[in-house]
C-alpha cells in the first residue's frame, strides 16, 4: 500500500508501526544488541523518519527505508559497544536501494528458511531453533541445553548456518 507522506496521518503511521515494527526489531536484535540498545536503534529509525519526511521521494519504499535505517543505527551502536570509536552521526541516511536485509526479510523467505532448518541434521536443527527462539541465551546455556562442549558452540553455529545458506541457495 503506498503512503502519501504529505498526508501521512496518525492511522497511517500506526499502520507503519504495525507492519514494520517487528522486522525493525529483528534486524536490531540480529546485531546482538540487548533489548535497551535494540529499542534505541528502532526508535532512532522512527525519529529519523519524522526528521526526513520531506526528503522521501518514494513513499512505497518507506518500509525498506525504515529497515535500512534501523540497520545503520544498530551497526553504529554495535560498533560503539565493541569498543570501536563512536561513529559520527551520518549527515544523510543512505538510500535503501538494493538493501539485502529489506529484500530478504519477507514471509516467504522465512517459510523457506524454516523448511530448510527442518531438513538439517542434529545438532544443527536444535541449535538453530534455540538460537532463534532464545536470543538472549549465551553459549554456556546453549551448551548445557544441547549437552555440547561450550567451545564447540561457536564453530557448530557457523557450520550450521553455512549449511542452511547453501540449502537455500540450491533451492533458488
Amino acid at each position, binding site marked *: 500500500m503506498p503512503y502519501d507522506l504529505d498526508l501521512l496521518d496518525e492511522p497511517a*503511521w500506526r499502520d507503519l*508501526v504495525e507492519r514494520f515494527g517487528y522486522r525493525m526489531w*529483528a534486524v536490531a*536484535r540480529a546485531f546482538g544488541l540487548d533489548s535497551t540498545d535494540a529499542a*534505541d536503534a528502532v526508535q532512532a529509525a522512527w525519529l*529519523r523518519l519524522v526528521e526526513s519526511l520531506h526528503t522521501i521521494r518514494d513513499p512505497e519504499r518507506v518500509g525498506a527505508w525504515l529497515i535500512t535505517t534501523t540497520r545503520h543505527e544498530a551497526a553504529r551502536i554495535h560498533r560503539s559497544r565493541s569498543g570501536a570509536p563512536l561513529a*559520527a552521526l551520518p549527515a544523510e541516511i543512505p538510500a535503501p536501494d538494493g538493501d539485502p536485509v529489506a529484500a530478504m*526479510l519477507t514471509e516467504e523467505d522465512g517459510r523457506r528458511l524454516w523448511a530448510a532448518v527442518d531438513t538439517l541434521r542434529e545438532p544443527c536443527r536444535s541449535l538453530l531453533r534455540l538460537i*532463534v527462539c532464545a536470543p538472549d541465551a549465551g553459549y554456556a546455556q546453549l551448551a548445557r541445553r544441547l549437552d555440547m562442549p561450550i567451545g564447540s558452540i561457536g564453530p557448530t553455529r557457523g557450520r550450521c548456518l553455512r549449511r542452511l545458506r547453501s540449502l537455500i541457495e540450491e533451492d533458488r
Partner: protein
Amino acid sequence: MTDDEYVLAALRIAAGADPVPARVSTDARAVYGLRLPGALTAGPVGVPSGVQQPSGLQQPSGVRPPSGVRSGGRPADGEPRLLRFAAGGVTIDVEITICDSHIDLAGQVQPAPGKGARVEIRTPHVSKIRFPSETGEFATTGLPHGWLSVVCHRPGNPPIATRWQCVRL
C-alpha cells in the same frame, strides 16, 4: 551485518520469536506526535577546537563525565559534551552533562534569535520551553536519559530542530 545474521533475523521474524516489547511499539507510535511540519532539520557539524562553551549552565559538583552520548564525537572524559548543529544559517550549540539520574543541558543559538524566540528542549515525553538570553543562551536541568532534540522557534521564520540524539550513561 553478516550473511549469518540476515539468516537469523529472517528466521526470528518468521517464528515470531523474540516479540517486540510493548514499550518499543508504544514509543514508535508516539513519534508521530513529534512531527514539526515546516521545520528545518539542523544536522550535526564539527565543533572547531577551542570553541568557548555556552556559559548558561552552572556545573553542579560531583557530576559524572558524559561517557555515553552515542550520537556524536568521541568521549571527552571529565568534560561536558559539546555538540554543534547547523541549518539555514543558524548554529545551535548544545552542551550535555550526563548525571546518574538525569541530563543537564546548556546551549546557545547563533546568531541570537532575537525577541520573541523560544527554545524548546524536547524528549519523546517531556518538553521544556526556555526564552534565550540576548546572546542566544539557554539552559535546563533534570532531563531524562534518552532521546532529545532542541528546537528554536523564531517569529516569522520556520523553526529549526536539531536531529534527535540518544544520550545515555
